[in-house]
Each structure stands twice: as structure tokens, then as C-alpha cells.
């Protein structure tokens, strides 16, 4: 059956001379230009990069850094993923903890996600025969025809998305001015601009970023160097203009960047991150600057019946003259007056009718709309600590501590009148008093051994490695209610069967010396 299927697969010819020279010594090229294995697989930049690293480490290939970069670029561009294929997998390059439960066939989850994210597996697309050869290298996987069929259907080489993208993609021209919004857990929303200039070679760009915190006005300048693969995969590094301080979550820290660019090249979204296991970062969205644009508000919710609510509308190229009639805020919400306005900020006062219904409202100024920008509510029903489960880690001589920032978010129950259901209304961050509890404790004497939680919701593991795991609650109290996050504070490394394992996001991985 598999052999029969294989006959119908046409590979992707390899034409790059560097790839042919360096990879072709082992992988034969046939008369159609198909290179053994390589022509029958596609992958994200991370997929090809990890393959190249493995080949380098095992001595199967000898290449210079420029050659490695050229091979990575060529394979990611011509044997890459379409935007529609890569978007659901972005949590892998963005280094996010992601609950994959229910996201795929249970067999695939059990087979692949036991040892790594499912996205890592699905970031490759192969023919059935290539999946068979690939799986044969996984000594822990019991390979069967059913499994090969399953993964070949989930991640096939030939897809309509790739066929379409391969024929229409072009070198992304990202140069110009972009408008940015960025959210950093614990620090709130930032707005600003991203200037992109062409780099030294096609697909490479230089960036300059200005961000300003909506909460406290803190400003960040960053510069970076970016590569764009397959016309939509933004990967790079950036650093702050100011030297990062000793605080591990300093937003001026050097960061890696991974973003997904929309097929039409008008929007980007992704994450800029740093930390022992990339626990800090900005969730970023960017849109091309074009005319008057609303970017963000400084408040997330208003109470029904409240008057004179002051709100700042942050954006770009706002009109010189703005009246209250120019802004609409949805049913039951009226703009009482404009207090001030500038090209990048409008301060207004809003009234919420006592007969307004709870729910989200769009905010519109001229042709620019912020969808679901504010929540209208009549009570806070519960608060939730985000993330609602997390890991932090003690450090040792070779591994820095892993920290965790928490936020308390207020909610009102939705129309179903039940808590913790999908229709609940998120009201935004709420100021809370923070505390912690260690599981099974009889008093608080273990707190110093485990760590501490600050009144900004920042958990710091104890400086001394406790040598064992602790389970704790991080607790936020506000408005007489509490929310909890289940946190495992874990050791930095452990030994098992002669190998050292280190923490990586939500799992342990073997450390290479």
C-alpha cells in the first residue's frame, strides 16, 4: 500500500549548488533533480536548522557558517511551510508553553508529544516513505503502517496550501514603518513603532523599535537583525539600547524574535523572548503604518452605570481635530467629551448607561476599529491567576534560576451564569495582594526554602537549590476573592541513567556536554 502510494509523489527538486555540493555527497540526485530524502521533505527554519546541527555534530557534513546559513535559507525557502501550515505551529518557535490536548489525533499525541511538542513533529512535511524512514530512527517509537498513514495524512509533503504558496510567494519586502503593540506579562501593554530597513542580502533586515508602556510611560528602544524565511517566517535577535539591569525580566534584555507574517505582508504577530527557558517576553503584533490608526486603550473595562470614565486612546496619525462624535464605543456607551488630543493620543471621557448590557464593545475612530476593545460589566465574579499553572526552577553553578511572572485577571460570568466557561467576560488585569502556600505545609517555615512572591506577582525561587521539587499555590487576593496558580518549583538538573537532564519550558531534556 505504502509502496503504491509512493509512486505518485513527486519530489521538490534541489537546485542550489551549495546544497548539492554539501548534501549531495550522501544524498544522491536523480535525473529529475530530486535529492534523496531532501526532496521529499519540507520543514520550518527550526526543523532544517536542527537537522543541520545534528549532521554537523555527528561529523556527517563539514561546512562554514556562511554555507550553513545559505543552506538553511535555501531549504527553508524552497522546502518550507506555507503560512497556513506554519501558523498553528508557531508556539514552538515562539517558545510558549502550549496545551496540545485535543489538538490532534490521540495516537499522534501519545507517540510524538510524549517526548517533545507535537508542533516539533508537525513542523516537518514528508512523503509516506520519508516518514517511514524518519520514524525508523526513533527507537522509542513502535512503527506501524497505521502510524505512518496517520502522520502522512497529518503532515503530507504535497498540500494545496504549499502548492499555492510556492507559486505566489516572493521575497518579503518588509521595509518601512510598522505600528506595534506589545504585551509583557506583569508590565502590561506597550505601543510604538518598528522601522525595518533592508539588510545586506535578500531576506535580511535591520530593525529599530520604539515602545512606550501605556501604564507608566517607560520607553524602550531596541535594534535587531532579522531573517525572513519562506516569505513569512520572521526570525532574529534584538537588543535594548539601554543596558539591561540586574532584574531578569528587564524589557531591555537581549531577545530572540519569532513572528509569523500574514500572506499579504500587512501584519505580523509573534513573540520576542529571553530568560533561562524563555519565560520572559513580549507578545507582539505589528501592522503596516497607513493613516489614522487606533492601537490600544489604557483601560480594559468599564462598569455599567459609571460616568466620566477617563480613557486614553493610543494610536498613530490621529486627525488634528477630534470631537466626541468621531468616536463610537458601542451600545450603551457614549463619549461625553474629548479632553485632549495629539497625533498619537486622545484622552476622552466615556459614560456607560445603567441599562447597558454586559459584553465587549468595539471602539472606532474614523476608519480604524479596535475590535472588542473594552468590556462592559456589572460585577466581578472571580479572579484568575495567569498562567494558571506554571513551573519555576532553582539555579545552580551552571544554570540560572527560572522565574515566573503572574497576573490577576478579573472575570464576570457570562450568559450561561456559570463560572469558568467559554462565555465568561474577561475584564482585564486587577490589582491584587500576592501570597504563596507550599503544599502539605504545617506552617510557613518552608517559604524561604522555596522562594518568594512579590507584590507585583513576580515569583523568585530561593537562591539556594533546595534539591527537591515543591508544589506551591501562588495566590492573588482582590475584592475579597482569591485566584490561584499551581506552580511546581523544580530542581535545575537531575541525573538519570548517566545523563544530565535540564529544564526546558514544560519538560526535561537531555543536556549535551
Amino acid at each position, binding site marked *: 500500500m505504502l509502496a503504491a502510494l509512493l509512486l505518485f509523489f513527486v519530489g521538490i527538486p534541489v537546485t542550489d549548488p551549495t546544497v548539492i555540493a554539501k548534501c549531495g555527497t550522501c544524498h544522491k540526485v536523480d535525473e529529475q533533480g530530486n535529492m534523496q530524502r531532501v526532496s521529499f521533505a519540507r520543514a520550518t527554519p527550526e526543523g532544517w536548522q536542527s537537522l543541520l546541527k545534528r549532521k554537523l555534530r555527528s561529523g556527517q557534513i563539514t561546512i562554514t557558517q556562511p554555507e550553513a546559513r545559505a543552506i538553511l535559507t535555501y531549504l527553508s525557502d524552497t522546502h518550507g511551510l506555507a503560512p497556513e501550515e506554519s501558523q498553528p505551529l508557531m508556539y514552538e518557535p515562539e517558545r510558549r*508553553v502550549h496545551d496540545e*490536548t485535543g489538538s490532534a489525533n490521540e495516537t499522534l499525541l501519545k507517540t510524538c508529544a510524549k*517526548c517533545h511538542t507535537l508542533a516539533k513533529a508537525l513542523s516537518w512535511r514528508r512523503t509516506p516513505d520519508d516518514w517511514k524512514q524518519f520514524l525508523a530512527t526513533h527507537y522509542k517509537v513502535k512503527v506501524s503502517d497505521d502510524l505512518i498513514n496517520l502522520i502522512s495524512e497529518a503532515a503530507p509533503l504535497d498540500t494545496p496550501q504549499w502548492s499555492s504558496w510556492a507559486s505566489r510567494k516572493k521575497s518579503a519586502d518588509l521595509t518601512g514603518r510598522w505600528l506595534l503593540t506589545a504585551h509583557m506579562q506583569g508590565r502590561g501593554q506597550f505601543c510604538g513603532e518598528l522601522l525595518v530597513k533592508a539588510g545586506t542580502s535578500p531576506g535580511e533586515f535591520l530593525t529599530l523599535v520604539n515602545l512606550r508602556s501605556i501604564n507608566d510611560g517607560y520607553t524602550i528602544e531596541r535594534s535587531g537583525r532579522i531573517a525572513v524565511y519562506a516569505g513569512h517566517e520572521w526570525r532574529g535577535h534584538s537588543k535594548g539600547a539601554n543596558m539591561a539591569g540586574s532584574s531578569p525580566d528587564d524589557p531591555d534584555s537581549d531577545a530572540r524574535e519569532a513572528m509569523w507574517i500574514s500572506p499579504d505582508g500587512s501584519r505580523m504577530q509573534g513573540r520576542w523572548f529571553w530568560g533561562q527557558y524563555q519565560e520572559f517576553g513580549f507578545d507582539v503584533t505589528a501592522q503596516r503604518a497607513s493613516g489614522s490608526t487606533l492601537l490600544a486603550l489604557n483601560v480594559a473595562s468599564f462598569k455599567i452605570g459609571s460616568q466620566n470614565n477617563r480613557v486614553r486612546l493610543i494610536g498613530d496619525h490621529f486627525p488634528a481635530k477630534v470631537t466626541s462624535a468621531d468616536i463610537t464605543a458601542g451600545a450603551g456607551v457614549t463619549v461625553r467629551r474629548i479632553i485632549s488630543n495629539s497625533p498619537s493620543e486622545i484622552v476622552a471621557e466615556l459614560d456607560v448607561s445603567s441599562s447597558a448590557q454586559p459584553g465587549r464593545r468595539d471602539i472606532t475612530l474614523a476608519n480604524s476599529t479596535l475590535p472588542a476593545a473594552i468590556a462592559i460589566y456589572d460585577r466581578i465574579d472571580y479572579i484568575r491567576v495567569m498562567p*494558571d499553572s506554571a513551573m519555576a526552577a532553582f539555579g545552580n553553578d551552571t544554570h540560572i534560576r527560572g522565574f515566573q511572572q503572574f497576573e490577576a485577571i478579573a472575570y464576570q460570568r457570562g450568559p450561561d451564569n456559570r463560572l469558568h466557561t467559554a462565555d465568561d467576560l474577561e475584564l482585564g488585569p486587577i490589582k491584587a495582594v500576592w501570597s504563596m502556600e507550599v503544599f502539605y505545609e504545617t506552617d510557613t517555615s518552608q517559604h524561604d526554602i522555596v522562594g518568594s512572591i512579590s507584590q507585583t506577582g513576580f515569583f523568585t525561587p530561593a537562591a539556594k537549590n533546595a534539591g527537591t521539587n515543591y508544589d506551591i499555590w501562588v495566590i492573588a487576593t482582590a475584592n475579597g476573592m482569591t485566584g490561584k496558580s499551581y506552580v511546581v518549583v523544580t530542581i535545575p538538573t537531575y541525573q538519570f541513567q548517566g545523563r544530565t537532564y535540564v529544564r526546558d519550558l514544560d519538560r526535561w531534556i537531555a543536556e549535551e556536554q
Partner: protein
Amino acid sequence: MKKTIIILLAATTLALAHHGLAAFDTTKTVDEKGTVVDLHFVNPHCIVEFESKDDKGEVHKWQGEMGSPTHLKGWTATSLEKGNTVSVTGYRAKNGTYYMWITSLKSSNGTILKSFKGDN
């Protein structure tokens, strides 16, 4: 530092079944009946908080640990809600605190957990 082969503490998500039952007295079970305060449907363990009166009428706040959301097949974040009455059986913490590993649970809303020993 280079990293290669990935082994896990976690399965599909955060640290599934990441600790053993060493903290609990598994030589005998305890039975409690109480009122649900909250359900935390999270990794690495789902936890139900409930209040239960002892023989003297004193109210104690219990924390009952279970498997991960993946293990509690059919359960959701609303399988137990505040105010539900629950009858639980489990292993109590050895140090006498009001923690238990729940082996079975029956709720007034129909939710049940049968003979769950965990796979720690």
C-alpha cells in the same frame, strides 16, 4: 549548552503526574463528605478544594489531588462547581494536614471519579 534528545517529566503538557504518593498514607483510605469550594482543572494535577465538617462540627478546608486533565477523561473545568456536594475517598497526607490523594469521588451533580489510583 546544547540540547538534544528530549525526555520527559511532562507528557503533553506541564509535568504530568510529576510526584509520587510518598506524601500520602497509602496504607488506609479516608472518606470525606463536603461542599466544593473550587476545582482547579490544571496541570500537573487537577485539584478540588472542598469544605468538610468533622465529628465535632468543625469545618476543615480540604485539598484533594487527582490526575492531570488528560487523565480525567470527560472532565472539564466545570465538572465540579462551587456548592456541589462531594463524597470522596482517598489517601490522606502523612503529616496530618488536610490534603488527600483522591482515589474516588462522587458529586451531587453526577460527576464521578472511579478508583483512580494515579500512575505515579
